């Protein structure tokens, strides 16, 4: 990891929301993201996995500068992320783009595909009016659509084709970074493979860096050069995909990996107790400890830091995995659902 500069570096990102519970409730502070650091290199993909409420999408929006972190900061190409709405921030929109989960929601159903793909070109003043149709055609071909799809409207395309159109629009400005937030989870299995192949192909061709946010470990392995596992607003483990998938170090990663449905395998699955926790009622110490089978007493008191494990250098935030505490037998379940 020497030589090339990271394209993007996020340091200790924190994002808090206040949430009111019901009509008469008191506002509660929710830490959606609680100290996340990420590094992305040119031409590489970082996979971000975790369950709903773990803060992976919020992290993606902060990385893009769409949301301002309450603490910490993002540096893109060695420049500090400008504030939203400033001219510098607007220029950056061309260099970092996003692909969403729901392609139909991401497209304007009243405009044809060609107009929507050309839109970023107009906004950022790329090329001349005359060469725009040619560019749009090239972009559509690049994502496996036909040039005549430019005249189609979103509802006339299939789910996979819509996601291709969204990708063409995201690639129009030849961005350096593409944030994909659950880009395949709304698609059918056979179409998921098409879109994953397309994303890899685009990366090989253009060298775009990607943040691939997903709850699907198989997809993350397929797409990523590195993977970070998030739980309740923090990264609990980070490493090479095959290392994390084949020998997960954090007990939560272990449970996630064992929950991957696997043709031909039966049994031997770690079934976690309880529900995914509520960010508004974060347990003390390690946030995972109430569901953890090996939690020791220290886990309920101290927040484990994400650091390199002495044995193999894996980044993991766990007292037990680090060898700082002996594996316990789990802690009695207490107040998992406060309120």
């Amino acid at each position, binding site marked *: 990891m020497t030589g090339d500069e990271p394209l993007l570096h996020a340091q200790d990102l924190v994002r808090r929301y206040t949430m*009111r*519970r*019901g*009509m008469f409730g008191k506002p509660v502070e929710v830490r*959606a993201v609680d100290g996340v650091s990420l590094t992305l290199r040119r031409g590489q993909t970082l996979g971000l996995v975790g369950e709903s*409420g773990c803060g992976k999408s919020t992290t993606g929006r902060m990385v893009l500068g769409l949301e301002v972190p309450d603490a910490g900061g993002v540096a893109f190409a060695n420049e500090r992320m400008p504030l939203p709405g400033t001219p510098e921030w607007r220029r950056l929109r061309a260099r970092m783009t996003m692909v969403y989960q729901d392609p139909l929601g991401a497209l304007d159903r009243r405009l044809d595909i060609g107009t929507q793909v050309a839109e970023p070109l107009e906004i950022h003043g790329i090329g001349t009016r005359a060469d725009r149709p040619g560019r749009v055609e090239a972009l559509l071909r690049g994502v496996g659509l036909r040039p005549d799809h430019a005249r189609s409207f979103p509802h006339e395309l299939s789910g996979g084709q819509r996601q291709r159109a969204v990708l063409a629009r995201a690639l129009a400005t030849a961005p350096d970074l593409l944030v994909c937030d659950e880009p395949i989870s709304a698609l059918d299995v056979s179409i998921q493979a098409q879109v994953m192949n397309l994303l890899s192909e685009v990366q090989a061709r253009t060298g775009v860096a990607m943040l691939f946010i997903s709850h699907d470990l198989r997809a993350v392995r397929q797409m990523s050069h590195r993977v970070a596992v998030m739980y309740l607003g923090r990264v609990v483990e980070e490493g090479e995909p095959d290392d994390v998938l084949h020998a997960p170090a954090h007990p939560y990663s272990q449970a996630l990996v064992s929950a991957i449905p696997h043709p031909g395998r039966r049994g031997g699955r770690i079934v976690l107790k309880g529900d995914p926790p509520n960010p508004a009622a974060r347990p003390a110490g390690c946030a995972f400890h109430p569901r953890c089978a090996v939690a020791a007493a220290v886990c309920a008191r101290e927040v484990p830091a994400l650091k390199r494990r002495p044995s193999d250098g894996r980044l993991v935030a766990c007292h037990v995995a680090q060898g700082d505490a002996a594996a316990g037998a789990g802690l009695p379940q207490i107040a998992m659902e406060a309120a």
Partner: protein
Amino acid sequence: MLRFLGLRLARALLTMVLVVTFAFIVLRLSGDPALLIMSADAPPEAIAAFRQAWGLNDPIWEQYLRYFAAIFRGDLGQSMRDGRPAIELVAERIPATLALTLPALAIKLGLGIPAGIYAALHRNSFADRAVMLLAVAGFTVPSFVLGLVLVLVFAVQLGWLPSGGQESWRHGVLPVLTLGIGGAAVLARFTRSAMLEVLGQPYMRTALAKGVPWARAVRRHALPNAAIPTVTIVGFMVGSLLAGAVVVESVFSWPGVGRLLVVAVANRDLAVVQCILLLVAATMVSANLVVDLLYGVLDPRLRSAPREATA
């Protein structure tokens, strides 16, 4: 809960202050009560005396403040026309108005809601189309047109019912029908769409999948959910019990609050207009408050907090 009620009450008060102020400004700037009540060819001395007596020569903001202070003392002023307390004038008209609007409300609820439910349950059937055709007609035809049509048919052509006045219960039939049919149409349309929305929900399928017979599923699972949006419009109808009959009372020369309002506005009889507006605003605002509280009773989701937090 108290905080919520306090907030709603404060908002209700503000609404009423705005209504009163608005009425004062519009009425006082649009015509001279002295000229309207005394008639334009009255001797100038009489008009001056009238102005003096009612304080119409004072600066307008002074009149406004005086009027406002009086309201807080519970004094809604006197009619400029006959010098009687405005509240008295209005109060004696209320029974006549309610005699129209209450039976009309019964028709709206008794006809509109069942028709809407029936249409939704038999979607696209002949009955559904017929109900909706009638509803759209009742919805779009203004009440004075409907009133005149009813008069033409039942009073002029058939001679079954009187066309105006308030001598017997038979005089009330046409105005009540005019009011009721229009409202029933609105309610039928609304209930139908609320029902259709609910019938398409996954929990209805769940109820059937666990063996709940269709009629019971409609009664126990669909109706309570469809009631939630319907309550809004019913609340609005209850809120307009006093004010909803202005046009119809005029068409049928029915001596209710609505006709009093029309006359008072024509005469710029400020105190009477204000008094009616205040009363109407008060009923509307309290009906709204009741609707808000009813929501809480009908929909448990509004009583306590959702568990979910944002990602």
